[in-house]
């Protein structure tokens, strides 16, 4: 048993709770937007699902990526980026994006993606949207464990293994 004594350290931490207010917000059901209006949030849900739709893993909105963005952008993005993002969201809202058929949604977002490649990050709605959509989804529990492969404590390091059939990429 002594050989495994070092594992005791981890058990101390697994019993601890150090969750911040953000996590409490996540735990609320039903969830509410804190920054965006209900209609902005609906537009955002449609946008994140156009970027990361359901495939062999759930869609971005199934991982609450739109709620993540509603919290993370006002907290983490620069004031200019926040403004760019909200303006862009309203433009998509004005086009009734959430209610459009998927092919129209794809066409609209494709046009915006092209137009938004040249501007700097803070002035590019698409760059900001994609950044937060990907980090919101792929670092969520669903994204990391279902769309990707994830081990919080791998138990060691194996440097050179054959790639397993349909192996997912590591989330981190």
């Amino acid at each position, binding site marked *: 048993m002594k050989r495994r004594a070092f594992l005791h350290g981890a058990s*101390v931490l697994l019993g601890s709770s150090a969750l911040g207010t953000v996590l409490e917000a996540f735990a609320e059901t039903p969830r509410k937007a804190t920054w965006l209006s209900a209609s902005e949030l609906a537009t955002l849900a449609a946008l994140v699902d156009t970027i990361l739709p359901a495939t062999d893993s759930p869609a971005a909105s199934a991982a609450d990526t739109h709620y993540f963005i509603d919290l993370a952008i006002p907290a983490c993005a620069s004031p200019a980026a926040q403004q760019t993002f909200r303006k862009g969201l309203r433009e998509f809202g004005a086009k009734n994006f959430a209610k459009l058929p998927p092919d129209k949604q794809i066409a609209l977002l494709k046009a915006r993606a092209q137009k938004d490649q040249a501007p700097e990050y803070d002035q590019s709605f698409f760059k900001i949207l994609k950044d937060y959509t*990907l980090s919101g989804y792929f670092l969520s529990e669903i994204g990391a464990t279902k769309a*990707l492969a994830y081990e919080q404590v791998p138990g060691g390091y194996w440097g050179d293994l054959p790639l397993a059939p349909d192996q997912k990429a590591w989330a981190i």
Partner: protein
Amino acid sequence: MSDTNKYDAIVVGSGISGGWAAKELCEKGLKTLVLERGHPLRHIEDYKTALKNPWELPHNNRATNADKAAQPIQSTLYLYDQSTKKHFVNDNLHPYTQAQPFNWYRGYQVGGRSLMWARHVFRYSDLDFEANQREGVGIDWPIRYKDIAPWYDHVEKFIGASGENSGLAQLPSQNLQPPFEMNALEKHIRGRFAEKFAGERKLICSATAVLSREHNGRGPCQGRNQCARGCPYSAYFSSNGVTLPAAAATGNLTLRPDSIVHSLIYDEGADKVTGVRIVDAATMKTQEYFARVVFLCASTLNSTAILLNSRSLRFPDGLGNDSGELGHNLMDHHNGGGATASYSKLLDRYYRGRRATSMYIPRFRNVARKEEKFKRGYGYEVYTWRDSWTRGVGGAEFGADFKNGITRPGDWGLYTEGYGETLSNHENRMWISPEKQDRWGIPRINVSMTYGENEKAMAQQMMDDAVEMMEAAGLENVKGFNHAVTPGSVIHEMGTARMGRDPKTSVLNGFNQIHAAPNVFVTDGSCMVSSPTQNPSLTYMALTARAVNHAAEEMKAGSI
């Protein structure tokens, strides 16, 4: 003065050097007081974020604007995120003046920066110890490899390190556990190097204070690579997990956190240092502690600031500053030159776990042949991976095919940067402004450092060599870079109280004693005479253990 204010030894600081001083002094049977300016931090129990998943951390571990406002310098570090921010100082509470841009990354807590260090532990060789004398740069080291080699052994055996011995004279062999395995790309590069560079340039697994096997009840590494959060398995070396518990086990340790040392107490009549004055960080009250010897291990800039703030009739310009060199000859490494590359073969190979170290290319410049363009040399850290979802963040693509693509392992990627030696230069320095005090009455530190022509010429070659080597290895999209580095950014700040043989040109002697105050030892980075290319912490630990041994001998002999 009450008895509780009297000890055999006082150690200022509980980081890598202070932890070692504490362990060695306590194990010699000396009652030892460790003064740490930062807050208490219990091993394991206080590593609250250590086992958090990304989604359990605020904003999936992304720093907020409020974080960056409180820690504008600390938050620029690659290690900084929601999981590690508590281990870095609030820059607004602890201001310093950048006479030239200088990034000062600090951790004010028990264990100091030993919690967040990058854990590379290489030895210096006589190529390093003899360089200043050979080239007429700065002053000569008062020691040679044979003086420190037994202490490298002593430290390595206790801390536990893994990695690979290079077999090269400029990177002496060490006591190492088996290395972490190379991945398929690294094995490929290693093979190509062997074909192209005739053993002169090698790829090895870095010597790292991370355990690949169990050692004294610690480890092995569980493959999280989240060391800076603190390790619940004690698999990497920190003061909190290793030296402080060893010191405490002797019964001789008293650890006093929240104790900001203001200055050393100098007794003019007895002509010696008798103790230290502190300000309690919480109560703001001052307090004095007394001991026969004092070890300053508060980190390069803070140890020297304490000496500069210790003024007396005998030492009007700061304790031990007869030479006028105190505060001068500040160095850091520079790591602006390197390369990125990719590789679209070996795609049937992958890895599991997150390796908590890098690969390494030991120094090869100015070893066998003398370079025309610059003195000294550099070693490279090499990082490789297979692309994951982050490759999708840029670009205009989206949708189902896009998502399917980026959730599968992509091409191999590689990033390498050189770590170059910086020459000692009197003009690179720190000093204190007594008229500007923080809330604890401690004078403001000013820093002025710039890289010189030698470093600039070296950085260019660092880039060119990285490109040459990765092209020789057959990698694709090889792109060199050579970006400007803000001094301090490598977090290897050193010098400012250098060792030497001559009291006229140095602050410390060959045993890290202040020439004119031999019961004061300075054993952190401030003692450094030159900066070699290798990561310096192992040398601080070895010099500290050696200095404690010397202090104990002199105390026994009654000479201090």
